[in-house]
């Protein structure tokens, strides 16, 4: 497990460094993600340690953004004043996103099966 964590941290460090010096617009960890993905594709398998660390993180992903989300206490008056705009925007947007994504996937699949 430790070697898996070390590998992931190394990719994170590499990503952060590349992000800082070469690609300032892309979050460093995402560059690390892409590099790790390339490494996994190249090696053709997922190392057991990496697997363990990754599944632990995926299981408790929600916990990790709790500290930042608690910062909402500082925005409460701000959010209350604009509650209607926020609620409508989030609600309509998520429904539209699900609908558009699903309809595109369905439309392009049907075309393919009609042809074949």
């Amino acid at each position, binding site marked *: 497990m430790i070697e898996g*964590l070390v590998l*992931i*941290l190394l*990719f*994170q460090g590499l990503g952060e460094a590349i992000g800082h010096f070469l690609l300032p*617009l*892309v*979050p*460093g*960890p*995402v560059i690390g*993600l*892409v590099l*790790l*993905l390339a490494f*996994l*594709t190249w090696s053709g398998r*997922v190392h057991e340690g*990496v697997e363990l*660390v*990754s599944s632990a*993180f*995926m299981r*408790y*992903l*929600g*916990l*990790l*953004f*709790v*500290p*930042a*989300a*608690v*910062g*909402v*206490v*500082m*925005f409460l008056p701000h959010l209350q004043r604009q509650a*209607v*705009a*926020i609620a*409508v*925007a*989030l609600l*309509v*947007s*998520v429904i539209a*996103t*699900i*609908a*558009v*994504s*699903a*309809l*595109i*996937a*369905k439309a392009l*699949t049907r075309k*393919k099966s009609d042809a074949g």
Partner: protein
Amino acid sequence: MRADLPNIHEIWVYLSGSPLLALILTLTAYQIGVMIYERSHLNPLANPVLIAVTLISIAISALDMPYAKYFEGAQFVHFLLGTATVSLAVPIYKGLPSLRGRWLPLSAALLGGGVTSIVTAVVIARLLGADETIVGAMYAKSLTAPIGMGIAERIGVSPTLTAVFTVTTGILGAALGRYVLDALRIREWWQRGFAIGIAAHGIGTSRAFSVNPEAGAYAGLAMGLHGVIGAIAIPWAIALLR
């Protein structure tokens, strides 16, 4: 009794000065959230993050603990966001074979869904008079929170509001997704899952997994790909528009 009071006070001062209190608070609140979520048979409305944030907010205001002080302790949990983001490579890698033969409908859906999620949220929030702090936090709200918050830092908007809108979006998407998909007569599990993953990231994915494993796998893949593509495209698009 009176002799004990300074002691309790001293213990309290000592504890609240160390990161322990914030860490215990964070982990306990999250654990309570997970327990309630599991008791509710994974009802998206009983979201563990929502429960944890509510409990901690109540606790720190009752303790008169400023948010900055709380965060000082909880930052040890927060720090792991970057590491968790890197490890998202594993589920994406495992999901890649699912793209085979469905590459075109999936990438088109991802692109269309991603653009829809930003344009609808930003335009509606602006039309209804939301200020730029709020509008800015709408950009990354359909991406998985660790990536969305990284983007928020890059584009100079609030990571906190981004996280809050992200969780809200996830809960709404997980709760309403099936009705939207049923109304549109989307029957293939992979299409349903993928659409939920694009719109409602991890919360939608966990909902999709509880309904059907194929839907869950595609939702997870959509969440990962949307995160990576969004992290590259959103900051560039905003830099170009500004």
